[in-house]
C-alpha cells in the first residue's frame, strides 16, 4: 500500500477560522495508508513547502495530499516542490478545503467534518494515481496571424522581429483594418495613417513575414505546435508580381461602384486599390462589378496594362501551411445602422456612423477633409452625436459598453469644431467613460473649452423634418425633453465581432463569450491566450478596445508566441483520455463527443484511439464511452467510485 502524507493548511485564518485543522490532522492520521499528517499556517510559504519536502524524504512517502486552497492556485507549487525531492508530481494532490469548505460554511463542526471527508476522498484518488510524465511535442516555429488590423500587424512584426517566420492572413485586399480609416486618433490627435502606414510598409518588406492579403483561413487541423492550415487565396484577377500600381487601369474602367473603404461615401472603379497607401500595393478586380470577367464584355484594363498583370482567368488558390501558433486578430465591425430602427433604420443619408465621420474628417477622404453632409454636400451647422447607439442596451441591442465611443465622439466633436468653427456640436451620452492615460484631460478640454454641448440622456427618435433632422431626446439632468433640429447626426454605433468571425471561430473551435467576442483563458491572469492551446488573442476580436490597448495586447500575444517558440520542446499535460484496446468495440460514440477532434478511428483494429496531443483531458469521451474502455488518466471510474464512497460514508 502506498505510504501517504497529508499536509493540512490553515491559510492564516482563511481555513482555520471555520475548520478545526488540528482535528482534521488527528482524524486523517488514523486513516488507512496515511503514515504522516500535520498542519501548518501557510503550506504555500517556503517553510511550508520545505516541511513537505522533508517529510517526503524522511517518511519515504509515495504520495501526498495538501489540504488547502483550490488546485488552480497552488497545485503547481506543491507538485514542483514534490518533484524537487524525487516524488512524481502526479502523486501530489490537492484537497480543496478552502473554496469548497471553509469559505462556504460558518458552523465549525460541520465544516470540519466536511474537510475530513474531502481530504479522505482525495486520499482515495491518490491511492490509485499513476506516476506520469508530460508528453513531449515537436513544434513548428512559425506563426500564423489572422487579421491584418493594427493588432495583427503589431503581433506579426513583434514575432518576426525576434526571428520567427510569420504568415499574415488578411481577408481584405489591403491590411490596415479600421485604423487605416481613421482620421486622427485620440487623445493626442496624431494622424492615424501617418503612424500606421510605416508599420504596413514594414510588413510588406519584412523578410520573415509572408503576407497573404485577400485571403481567408478555411481550415485548421492538428494541434498546438503543429497546426495544418488551409488558406484560400481569393483571385484578384491581377498578377501580384507584375502589377506596379501605375493607375492606368482606373482611367479606362467604365464601372463605378461605392468604395467600401470610404464606407460608401466615395466611389471606386471595378478595378481598384482601396486607398493609396494600401499594402500590398496591388490592384484588385471586383468580380461582382467587373464586366470583363463573365462574360467577356470589356477588357479595357487588360488592354492598357503595361506590365500585362490583368488575368481574367485567375482561379482561387488553396495554400497549405504548417504553423506552431496562431494569433487571432480579426477585430470588430460596427453594428449596422439598419438595426437601429429608432434612429432611421440606416436609410437616411444624413444619419451616419462614426466611421463615416472619420472618412469625412480625413484629408484623403471623399471630401478631402471638408465636413459635408452626404445628402446634399452642405456643410452641417448643427451636428448631433449620439453615444451608446446600440451599446449598453440589453433589451434591444448590445448589453455591453463598446468602450472606445466616448473617446472618439469627443474627438469627433472637437475635430468638427475645428473644421466648422461656427458649427454647433451636441453630444447625447449616458455616461462619459474616459479611463485612459490623458483621456479625462482630453474630455475636459472638449466639454469645457471647445463649445461642445454635452447632454446627459438618451435620444428616443430621429426623423427627417423638412431640410433637417429632428432629434428627440431627454436631458436627464434637467428632466426636460430636448428637441434639436440638426443638419446631420453621427451615431456612435456599438462594436460587434467582425463579420464572418462567428464562422471562423467555430471552425477554429475557439470559445467565445455570449456576444461573440473571443474568450480568454483567464480574464485576469491569462488575458491574451485562448483556452485552446496554441491560440493567442489580439485586439478588438476579444472585445472592443482602442489602439493603445490593442497594441499592448498584440505585443503580449506576440511575446507569448515567442516564449513558446523559444522552448526546446512543447510539453503536453499527461492527464488525457486513454483507451483500453481490449475493451473498445469501435462504436464511435466518443468521436461525436470529443470537442477537440482528438478521437481517431483505427479501421484495422476496429477501435477508436486518442490522439494525446490533441486531447485536452476534458473527459467528455470518458463519460460518453459506453463500454468503459476509455478512462481519464488519474481520474478513472474506479477512482471516482472510491471517492464517492468515502464522501457518502459507505
Amino acid at each position, binding site marked *: 500500500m502506498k505510504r501517504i502524507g497529508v499536509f493540512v493548511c490553515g491559510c492564516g485564518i482563511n481555513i482555520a477560522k471555520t475548520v478545526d485543522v488540528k482535528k482534521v490532522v488527528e482524524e486523517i492520521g488514523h486513516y488507512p495508508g496515511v503514515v504522516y499528517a500535520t498542519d501548518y499556517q501557510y503550506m504555500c510559504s517556503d517553510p511550508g513547502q520545505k516541511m513537505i519536502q522533508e517529510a517526503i524524504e524522511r517518511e519515504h512517502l509515495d504520495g501526498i495530499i495538501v489540504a488547502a486552497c483550490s488546485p488552480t492556485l497552488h497545485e503547481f507549487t506543491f507538485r514542483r516542490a514534490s518533484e524537487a525531492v524525487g516524488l512524481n508530481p502526479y502523486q501530489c494532490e490537492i484537497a480543496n478545503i478552502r473554496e469548497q469548505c471553509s469559505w462556504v460554511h460558518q458552523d465549525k463542526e460541520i465544516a470540519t467534518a466536511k474537510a475530513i471527508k474531502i481530504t479522505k476522498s482525495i486520499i482515495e484518488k491518490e491511492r490509485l494515481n499513476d506516476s506520469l510524465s508530460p508528453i513531449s511535442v515537436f513544434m513548428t516555429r512559425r506563426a500564423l496571424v489572422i487579421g491584418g488590423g493594427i493588432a495583427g500587424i503589431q503581433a506579426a512584426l513583434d514575432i518576426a522581429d525576434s526571428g520567427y517566420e510569420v504568415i499574415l492572413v488578411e481577408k481584405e485586399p489591403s491590411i490596415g483594418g479600421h485604423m487605416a480609416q481613421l482620421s486622427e486618433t485620440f487623445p493626442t490627435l496624431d494622424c492615424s495613417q501617418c503612424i500606421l502606414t510605416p508599420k504596413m510598409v514594414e510588413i510588406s518588406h519584412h523578410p520573415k513575414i509572408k503576407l497573404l492579403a485577400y485571403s481567408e483561413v478555411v481550415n485548421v487541423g492538428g494541434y498546438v505546435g503543429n497546426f495544418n492550415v488551409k488558406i484560400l487565396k481569393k483571385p484578384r484577377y491581377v498578377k501580384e508580381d507584375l502589377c506596379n500600381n501605375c493607375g492606368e487601369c482606373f482611367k479606362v474602367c467604365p464601372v463605378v461602384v461605392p468604395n467600401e473603404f470610404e464606407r460608401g461615401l466615395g466611389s471606386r472603379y471595378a478595378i481598384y486599390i482601396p486607398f493609396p497607401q494600401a499594402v500590398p500595393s496591388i490592384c484588385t478586380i471586383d468580380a461582382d462589378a467587373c464586366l470583363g470577367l463573365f462574360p467577356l464584355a470589356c477588357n479595357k484594363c487588360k488592354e492598357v496594362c503595361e506590365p500585362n498583370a490583368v488575368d481574367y482567368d485567375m482561379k482561387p488558390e488553396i495554400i497549405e501551411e504548417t504553423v506552431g501558433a496562431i494569433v487571432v486578430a480579426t477585430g470588430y465591425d460596427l453594428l449596422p445602422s439598419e438595426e437601429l430602427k429608432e434612429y432611421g433604420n440606416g436609410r437616411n443619408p444624413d444619419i451616419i456612423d462614426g466611421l463615416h465621420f472619420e472618412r469625412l474628417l480625413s484629408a484623403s477622404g471623399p471630401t478631402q477633409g471638408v465636413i459635408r453632409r452626404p445628402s446634399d454636400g452642405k456643410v452641417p451647422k448643427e451636428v448631433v452625436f449620439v453615444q451608446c447607439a446600440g451599446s449598453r442596451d440589453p433589451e434591444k441591442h448590445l448589453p455591453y459598453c463598446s468602450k472606445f465611443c466616448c473617446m472618439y465622439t469627443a474627438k469627433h466633436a472637437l475635430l468638427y469644431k475645428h473644421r466648422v468653427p461656427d458649427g454647433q456640436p451636441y453630444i447625447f451620452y449616458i455616461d462619459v467613460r474616459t479611463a485612459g492615460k490623458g483621456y479625462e484631460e482630453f474630455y475636459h478640454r472638449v466639454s469645457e473649452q471647445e463649445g461642445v454641448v454635452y447632454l446627459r440622456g438618451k435620444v428616443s427618435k430621429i426623423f427627417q423634418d423638412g431640410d433637417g433632422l429632428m432629434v428627440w431626446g431627454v436631458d436627464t439632468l434637467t428632466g426636460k425633453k430636448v428637441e434639436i433640429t440638426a443638419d446631420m447626426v453621427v451615431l456612435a454605433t456599438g462594436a460587434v465581432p467582425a463579420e464572418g468571425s462567428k464562422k471562423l471561430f467555430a471552425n477554429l473551435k475557439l470559445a467565445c463569450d455570449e456576444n461573440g467576442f473571443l474568450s480568454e483563458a483567464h480574464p485576469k491572469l491569462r488575458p491574451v491566450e485562448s483556452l485552446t492551446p496554441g491560440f493567442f488573442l489580439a485586439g478588438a476580436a476579444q472585445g472592443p478596445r482602442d489602439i493603445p490597448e490593442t497594441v499592448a495586447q498584440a505585443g503580449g500575444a506576440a511575446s507569448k508566441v515567442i516564449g513558446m517558440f523559444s522552448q526546446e520542446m512543447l510539453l503536453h499535460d499527461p492527464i488525457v483520455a486513454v483507451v483500453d484496446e481490449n*475493451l473498445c468495440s469501435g462504436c464511435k460514440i466518443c468521436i461525436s463527443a470529443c470537442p477537440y477532434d482528438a478521437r481517431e478511428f483505427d479501421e484495422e483494429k476496429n477501435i477508436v484511439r486518442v490522439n494525446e496531443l490533441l486531447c485536452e483531458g476534458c473527459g467528455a469521451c470518458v463519460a460518453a464511452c459506453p463500454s468503459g474502455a476509455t478512462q481519464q488518466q488519474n481520474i478513472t471510474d474506479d477512482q471516482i467510485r472510491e471517492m464517492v464512497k468515502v464522501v457518502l460514508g459507505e
Partner: protein
Amino acid sequence: MAKLKVALYWAASCGGCEISILDIGAKILDFVAGAEIVFWPCAMDFKYHHVEAMPDGSIDLTLFNGAIRTSENEYMAKLFRRKSKVLVAYGSCAYEGGIPGLANVTDREGIFKRVYDTTPSTKNPKGIRPQTKTKVPEGELRLPEFYDTVKTLAQTVDVDYFVPGCPPTGERTWEVLEAILGNNLPEKGSVVGAGQKTVCDECPRTKNEKKIKAFVRPHLVIPDPDVCLLEQGIFCAGFATRDGCGAQCIQVNMPCRGCYGPPPKVIDQGAKIVSALGSIIDAEEPEEINRILDQIPNPIGYFYRFGLPYSILRRRVIK
C-alpha cells in the same frame, strides 16, 4: 473417471434458461457422457428432499438460473450453495436480477395490488391476497413469502461464476460446460461464457459518428439492415452490453436489449447508457432535448431492463 455431479435449478425465472441448456444440441450427449444430472426440475423428477439429503459439497456444479424473489428462492439458493462445489449464476436473472428485477420499481404491496386487484381481468371483491399460511380442514397450507425486493443470486449467497444472457446462447453454454468438464476454470467471480468487448464488436452493421435527432420505436420503421440501429434512432443497448451473444437480435433487425449485462469496466449499465446517449443527442435547446428524450417511453425499462437489482440503483426507495 467418475462422472461430475451436476444440478440445475430455476428460481424466479421464466424457464427459458433451463431449456437453453438444450440449445447446445447434440453436444448434450457429450455432456451426459461426462456428467450425472442430480437435479433438473424442468426435465427430471427429483424432489427438494433429495437435495437436502445429499452430503454438503457433493454436487460438483450447480447452474442456478432465476432471481431471488421469494423465501423459497432464497432457501434453495442457500441449499445449493451448501451442497455444491461450484455455483454458477446462469442467465441474466441469477446474474443481474433480470426482467423480474424490474419489479424493484415497486414493492410487494404494489405488485399484489396490481395482480389481485386492479388488472382489468381480475375480479376479487373479497380482496383475497396470498398468505404464507392458510388453515384448511386438512391442516395448514404454506406458500413461500413474496419479498419486497428482487435480489441477484450473488446478493444472496456466494457465487463462483456468472453466465450472462437471456438466455445464454447454446454455444457459450457449451464453452462453459466444456471448461468445467475439463476442469479448466477461470478465476473465481469471473463472468464466463461472454466476451470482454461490447455487442458493437460483433455487430456487422457499419458504424459512423453518432448524432441523434429523434428516437423511434422499432415497430414503427423498417430499418436499414446495414447501418447501426442507434444511428437510425432506434435505441439499441449494444454499445453498453457485453458481447458474446453473436449480436443475434441485431442481425434480425431488432435492437439489442442489453441482456448480456454491462461490459467488464462498467459498473452500472443503465447509467452508462444515459451518459452515452446524453453525449450524442444532437440538440442545443433544453426544450428540444426534452422532446427527443420523451421519445423514449420507459427509460428504466429500456436502460435497466435486465439489471436493476444489480445496478447502483437497485430499487426504488421504500418509505
